[in-house]
């Protein structure tokens, strides 16, 4: 209980101990680059990174470099950063530097894995963006709920139900209607969560579990009963890919970020809107105050439970939108339990991103990258099983949560129903 108050460091203060711990960590990463990659590389072998995703009109020449030299440069940079951290310290930029060094490590890993081979880097990154969509949008849903003080572990169930509705109603009417019903189904389940958690003061974890079990049961039941029997009910089609004029023509960057369907662009827009709304408007301040200290907020005349209802309903709608992605933005048909735990990775992305939209987006990209890379590992012939890469999001979330490398700061009043005295 004491540590929770201790870690409230809004000013970005980092204790000297933590500075040193991070410095040592940087050194360990640098050492890992040497031990795992440089020692196992023969000088003179070249790595080829493809810079044009398959099927893209924007051509970029391949990037060919000598693996050994590149790895040594990365090692040198990492050591330099580590030494600076230990001697002077990066102070409040420490986390950013940690990100940079982790990036070095990943790049070194890719360069080493693809030495003597060719890896389509831009394809890898493009898939990363695609895979990050449900994670990021799901994390936004979690942020809306948890910033207002309501745990939402039902993102998975909401996404699953929304995906089902998108498939069914998208097939019956059209994809726009499918998207609308998906969002409405998320809204309804958000309403269930809100009523259980706020009105009936049910333990929020149990309320979330109820929704998850119910959603899995209902969608599997209806899918087995109808969708599998009548295939025309499960063929809604997909939103087409749309190139952003101008931006999509940028070499390398364009095809990765600006040649997608509606959901990816919606993610960018929601990222900005949510950040502004939460941190730069009165509305957002109220929402966050309700999640941090409901009693104080109530004293100031903010209606705690009404604010929470609104936040959870919005969060549900967001999860519904994320669920629609699975059908209308990705595979185009519903299968039983097709979300396959991505709602929980979204939860992890929310924690990893420190309950912050930009953080969640970054975490979503990182986890999306892990997912994308897991699919390419067989090409790289590296001695890591892709299942371990698929575990990575969960493990890093546990590490972050435990505060080993920087602790997240959850909203203080999360999980507690508010009773007016």
């Amino acid at each position, binding site marked *: 209980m004491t540590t929770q108050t201790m870690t409230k460091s809004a000013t970005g203060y980092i204790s000297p101990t933590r500075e040193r711990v991070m410095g040592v960590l940087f050194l360990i990463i640098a050492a890992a680059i040497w031990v795992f990659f440089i020692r196992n590389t023969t000088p003179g072998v070249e790595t080829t990174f493809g810079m044009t995703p398959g099927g893209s009109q924007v051509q970029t020449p391949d990037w060919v470099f000598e693996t050994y030299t590149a790895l040594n440069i990365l090692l040198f940079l990492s050591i330099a950063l580590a030494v600076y951290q230990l001697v002077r310290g990066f102070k409040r930029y420490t986390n950013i530097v940690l990100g940079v060094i982790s990036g070095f490590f990943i790049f070194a890993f890719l360069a080493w894995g693809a030495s003597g081979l060719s890896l389509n880097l831009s394809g890898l990154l493009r898939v990363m963006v695609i895979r990050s969509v449900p994670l990021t949008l799901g994390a936004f849903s979690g942020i809306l709920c948890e910033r207002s003080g309501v745990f939402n572990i039902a993102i998975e169930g909401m996404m699953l139900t929304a995906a089902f509705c998108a498939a069914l109603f998208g097939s019956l009417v059209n994809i726009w209607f499918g998207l609308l019903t998906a969002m409405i189904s998320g809204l309804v389940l958000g309403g269930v969560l809100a009523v*259980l958690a706020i009105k*009936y003061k049910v333990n929020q974890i149990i309320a979330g*579990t109820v*929704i998850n*079990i119910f959603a*899995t*049961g209902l969608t599997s039941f209806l899918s*087995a009963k109808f969708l599998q029997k009548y295939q025309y009910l499960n063929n809604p089609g997909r939103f087409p890919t749309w190139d952003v004029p101008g931006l999509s023509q940028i070499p390398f960057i364009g095809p990765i970020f600006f040649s997608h369907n509606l959901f990816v662009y919606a993610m960018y827009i929601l990222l900005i809107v949510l950040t502004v709304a939460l941190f730069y408007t009165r509305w957002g301040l109220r929402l966050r105050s309700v999640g941090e200290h409901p009693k104080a907020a109530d004293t100031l005349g903010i209606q705690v439970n009404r604010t929470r209802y609104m936040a959870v309903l919005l969060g549900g709608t967001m999860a519904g939108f994320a669920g629609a992605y699975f059908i209308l933005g990705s595979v185009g048909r519903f299968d039983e339990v097709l979300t396959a735990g991505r709602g929980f990775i979204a939860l992890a992305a929310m924690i990893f991103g420190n309950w912050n939209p930009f953080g969640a987006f970054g975490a979503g990209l990182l986890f999306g990258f892990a997912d994308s890379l897991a699919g390419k590992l067989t090409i790289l012939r590296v001695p890591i099983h892709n299942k371990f890469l698929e575990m990575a999001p969960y493990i890093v979330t546990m590490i972050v*949560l435990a505060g080993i490398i920087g602790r997240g700061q959850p909203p203080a009043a999360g999980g507690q129903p508010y009773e007016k005295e």
Partner: protein
Amino acid sequence: MKIEKAKAQTPQKPLAVFLDEITRSPMMVNILAIITGLFLGGVIAALTTENVYAALKSSLGESLKLALQAAWNTYKALFLGAFGDPQRIVSALQSGDLNAINRALSPFAESLVQATPYIFAGLAVALGFRVGLFNIGAEGQIFVGALAAVWAGVFIKGLPPIIHAPLALLIGGLGGAIWGLIPGWLKAKTGAHEVINTIMMNYIAFRLSEYLLTGVLRDPAKTTPISAPIERSAWIPRLFPDPNRFHAGFFIALFMALLVYILLFKTTWGFELRTVGANPSAARYAGMNIVRSMVITMALSGGLAGLAGANEVLGVNRNLGVAFSSGYGFDSIALALLGNSHPLGVVLASLLFGFLRNGAIQMQLTAGIPIDIISIIQAMILAFIAAPAIIRTIYRLKPPKEPEIRLQTSSAGGSS
């Protein structure tokens, strides 16, 4: 009926007092929650029957009749699947043929088989609840328990059954215990919320099982990722000839329930655990070791869940496939709540869920109603129990005399 009414109107009469007590008791809420959940399950079964809508075009009465019939058929198939056909049982008993009796009673025994992992997993979650910890990771612990037990059953060879089977079971329990210990330790030491960590551990367990089942544990003779069959000496013995799968694991589960009961309610240590759960501050003030209690509880809880997995592979499946995923872990949260986190309550709730599950499996085969309907029913039962106010409003029950204890998970920990 008349007498009852008359008595109910005049207070102080024994029956009135009895009725009053009944309507106020928390047990009533649980029973009504089950009944309401089952009723709504019937409604869903009726609403998803196509010919109900077809008949709606001709007449409403016909449609209602069909709807009732659909609900009736669902529950008839569920009941027959769970308990067996009464006519068949009677005629088998009359004929005195042991083989026929075994066959006629095997659905009932199968329900007990289905209830066995529920008992273990329900106890796991209930134990956590009593100490104020929310173990939502029973599913992962079940998986790890199953993996560990399969490893012990496949790769340890040449032991006599009297040693091998308990050893494999124990190793399974240990696997689960480790999986529970990690979030417990993290909670106690760093204050990291055990709900999040157990969820993460669930998915790590799933990926780990996929990795092991496509690698080390995989049966080289098979094309699908499935483990080799475990050694005969590691089997938990089945007590009746085929097709009756009833095995000794059921009694181990009951024994565990007894052990948990004794631990929680008859030992000083259990008192300490329950105090930590009921009031961490008071426990700390009384000099109780909260960190130790949390870590041990999560390990024990994980161990119980691990036993559920071990029990399934050693007693029922005798190998482990990727499709082992059962949903037992999430259902066990409902069980613990339904059983009021009391071992006896958990056993009763597990029997109910075991009958439901087995009945639903048979129902899917005979009536063509997808098994997932029991998830819907279970979710609704869980919701009604978690929010007693809903049931109290529907049935106009009187409020309880004492305020209902809401589940409180502890925010203690992180005192390092």
